[in-house]
């Protein structure tokens, strides 16, 4: 096994450049899918005619498809139809389309976990439905959504690695470039990249546990 090329300064620099892209794409997709997920989750929760059904259709289709298929289609598919997205955009779009469906489900079950009496109490105080949702239900639900949301974000960080298929220059892709040159560095490099992902995601899960305890108290 070739540890020399694995830990060479040049390799480490390449990996760090890739890591920056990984984090950039992950962070953008987290923000976008959180916004889209909340909108979809609320739409599904409110049972508005037509809009709710459309939300259900979107959520059920997207969360039951492989993310890789969505990424493939978002890049190669749209390109063949004349829409040429840059790789970074295609990756962020694919991750967002998929993750927002999963976040919508987290939002819905968070909203459902708030007792119905809260709505009745707020409405009888003269709150409108929208005010009730915004000031009473959502803040309580958000607190309960934190653990599943963070684990969804961890999944998203891992999932950025699937964008190797469209040659997004993230960490996995950059590792590939190095081990394609030095074949014997494949195993140490895969382990090193795994370790970097682990460090990021394990820290995230610790933060989540800490938040959960703080908010519960």
């Amino acid at each position, binding site marked *: *096994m070739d540890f020399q090329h694995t830990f060479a300064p040049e390799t480490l620099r390449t990996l760090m450049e890739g890591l920056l892209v990984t984090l950039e794409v992950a962070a953008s997709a987290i923000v976008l899918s959180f916004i889209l997920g909340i909108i979809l989750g609320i739409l599904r929760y409110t049972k508005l005619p037509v809009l709710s059904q459309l939300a259900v259709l979107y959520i*059920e*289709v997207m*969360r*039951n*498809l*492989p*993310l*890789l*298929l969505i990424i*493939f*289609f978002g890049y*190669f*598919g749209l390109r*063949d*139809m004349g829409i040429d997205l840059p790789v970074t955009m295609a990756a962020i779009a694919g991750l967002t389309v998929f993750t927002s469906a999963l976040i919508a489900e987290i939002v819905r079950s968070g909203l459902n976990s708030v007792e119905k009496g809260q709505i009745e109490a707020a409405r009888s105080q003269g709150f409108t439905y929208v005010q009730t949702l915004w000031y009473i239900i959502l803040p309580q639900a958000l607190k309960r959504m934190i653990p599943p949301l963070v684990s969804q974000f*961890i999944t998203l960080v*891992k*999932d950025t*690695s*699937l964008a*190797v*298929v469209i040659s997004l220059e993230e960490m*996995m892709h950059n590792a590939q470039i190095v*081990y394609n040159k030095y*074949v*014997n560095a*494949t*195993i140490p490099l*895969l382990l090193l*990249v*795994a370790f970097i*992902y*682990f460090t990021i*995601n*394990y820290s995230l*899960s610790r933060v989540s546990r800490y938040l959960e305890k703080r908010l519960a108290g």
Partner: protein
Amino acid sequence: MFDIAVLADYKQEFIDGFLVTLSASVLALGLSLAIGTFIAVLRLSGVRPLEILGTAYVEFFRNTPIVIQVFMFAIGLPTLGIRFSEFTSGVLGLSIYTGAFIAEALRAGIQSVPKGQMEAARSSGMSYVQAMRYVILPQAFKLVIPPLGNQFVNLVKNSSVLAIIAGGDLLYTADSVSSDTFEVAVVYGFVALLYLVITLPISIGVNWLERRLSKNR
């Protein structure tokens, strides 16, 4: 563009891809159930070093991308002269990854069986293993059916990583047929439907079970 005849021309390819996806998912489910059960029992054994080992397994594999785990078998181990077929590499990578999630689901299930059950079984003269096998696990399995169903859906979706290592699965078929025919939208749309044929019924079943279980509480 949009020529549906492609689907008939490549009928055999689609059937083959569908069967590869299905058999990889089913095989990986069996293997990851075995791994997951073993790791969950380690974590609940009460023996500190075994618990640490089990926890390390779960934390490491669920915080690292599945791509790395599949690549380890497909391109890492071959550098040491250990070779698997693409299909086997995919199934092993999927199983190791999913095993970590199943271990967590089982642990949560086992811990939700009241402590008195274990004490009662032990005081009736059962060994720890017997009590687990005949008293605790059968009760826990009922509670973990919904999360296990979710893991199976995830397995079917994640089996698409086989496409990255040319594993001949459904997504791989979509990729090769669409680059042969340029009928990207038709091919990906059809393959998306085929994935939904497997995943949607399970998802709907899981939702139904979850609702029933929460009503019975």
